[in-house]
């Protein structure tokens, strides 16, 4: 599947972000076409979460531009930014469910708060979204703390898709799950993205997961994208850094600084 003929949904240009003297993002360039599913892979601490937080607007970049549907969102007023944020849905690494609210209200949160739906109708829609991700509706009134990790991920996914966003973000969707539950979540992600006809940006260091959910792969290293291409090409990319990462070798161009 190629998306080269469709317009850019997300366009990141020369993005820089430092924390004190730590230069985390050093000129990231990344384009996601409408309907594309891209997985950004890379080692721990390479700035994957920082990248996604900049795109979503949880962090302001030091320099560079981020365009969503052609609009530069860097330096936008909070109100305008909120309008753009309505296009987003995100599944967080730890699910990040609100523990003061029951499961259904978590799933319905975006419907009530951002779409202004009344609580009764929102509950009905939330139950539909719960079924879509394979959650029993019996747990609708339970507290998120009572759910297992896999169920929390499902509820987080239901919350992310309930508002039918155009762009979905997934931060390490399978981390902390057993391999079977991991692939169940991956399948749900693929299904949800397809049903919504959404654009998806995932970050992960789980290669099996990346292969399942993505059309394209981008590898980040030392604050830059060092390889970008279709998932089918990753095994014979000829890129030493990508090869080393895929095969998990400790020797190669990527040096782990254990004491940094």
């Amino acid at each position, binding site marked *: 599947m190629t998306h080269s003929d469709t317009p850019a949904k997300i366009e990141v240009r020369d993005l820089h972000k430092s924390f004190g003297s730590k230069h985390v993002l050093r000129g990231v360039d990344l384009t996601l076409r409408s309907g594309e599913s891209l997985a950004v892979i890379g080692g721990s601490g390479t700035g994957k979460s920082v990248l996604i*937080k900049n795109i*979503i*607007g*949880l962090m302001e970049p030091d320099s560079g531009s981020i365009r969503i549907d052609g609009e530069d969102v860097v330096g936008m007023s*909070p109100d305008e930014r*909120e309008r753009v*944020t*309505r296009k*987003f*849905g*995100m599944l*967080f*690494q*730890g699910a*990040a*469910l*609100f*523990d*003061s609210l029951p499961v259904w209200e978590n799933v319905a*949160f*975006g419907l009530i*708060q*951002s779409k202004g739906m009344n609580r009764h109708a929102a509950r009905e829609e939330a139950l539909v979204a719960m079924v879509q991700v394979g959650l029993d509706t019996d747990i609708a009134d339970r507290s998120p703390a009572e759910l297992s990790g896999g169920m929390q991920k499902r509820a987080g996914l239901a*919350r992310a898709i309930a*508002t039918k966003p155009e762009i979905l*973000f997934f931060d390490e969707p399978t981390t902390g799950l057993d391999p079977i539950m991991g692939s169940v979540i991956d399948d749900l992600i693929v299904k949800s993205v397809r049903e919504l006809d959404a654009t998806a940006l995932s970050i992960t260091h789980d290669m099996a997961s990346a292969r399942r959910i993505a059309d394209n792969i981008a590898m980040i290293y030392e604050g830059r994208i060092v390889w970008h291409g279709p998932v089918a090409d990753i095994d014979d990319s000829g890129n030493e850094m990508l090869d080393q990462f895929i095969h998990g070798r400790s020797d190669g161009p990527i040096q782990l600084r254990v004491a940094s």
Partner: protein
Amino acid sequence: MRLLRAIGRGTIAIFAVIGRISVFAGTSLYHCVRPPFFPRLILRQMIEIGFYSLPVVGLTAIFTGMVLALQSFSGFGFAGEATIANVVVWGITRELGPVLAGLMVAGRIGAAMAAEIGTMRVTEQIDALTTLSTNPFKYLVAPRLIAAVAMLPLLVLVADVIGVLGGFIVSVYDFGFNPTTYLKSTWASLDAAGFISGLVKAAVFGFLIALMGTYHGYHSKGGAQGVGQATTNAVVSSSILLLLFNFIITALFFAT
């Protein structure tokens, strides 16, 4: 030279913190007055802050009122109803009611706010709010500020009544004063300025407690330890600010 540099650095750091807190307070106030509002959340906080603080504030007040009566009786010798009633009323309504209720609530509510919001921060729940197009200042901070500013004066009102009652109990049952005369003296000692200053203090204390609780929670980082640190900072800073503002407000009301 080195000393000067250290003092300079310390001064800059203090102003940086004051600046950050002021920006936080400004943003919060802006969201307090701008819709959408969250009446459900405000109500929930009001119950949490107002209703559930009643026992601890009530107990503090009654013992304080009793102690005030005991101390003034032993301090002034046999001073008579008028003096003791006067000391109790002035002490409770002007100072001890608002300050002790404020400190108690700072321990209860300031800590709870910092812990709850801090946990939400480190588990990315605050980030999740933003991705669901909900401003965390509107959803988390504003309801707590509004509820605290509204409920603290009510709590202090209750503390005033219970504190005076404590003094009354000791005076009547221990010293054997005539209850009617004591109540009359109490009523006569009540002055509008002192009473109102106490309620103004309470509202300001409510604001400070909620501000410190939410500020430290919002900026906590680094897992469970960070949240614990935020909780401690919230209680300590709100208690100190509370005593500072108690002095400032007293000076504004009563300095001649």
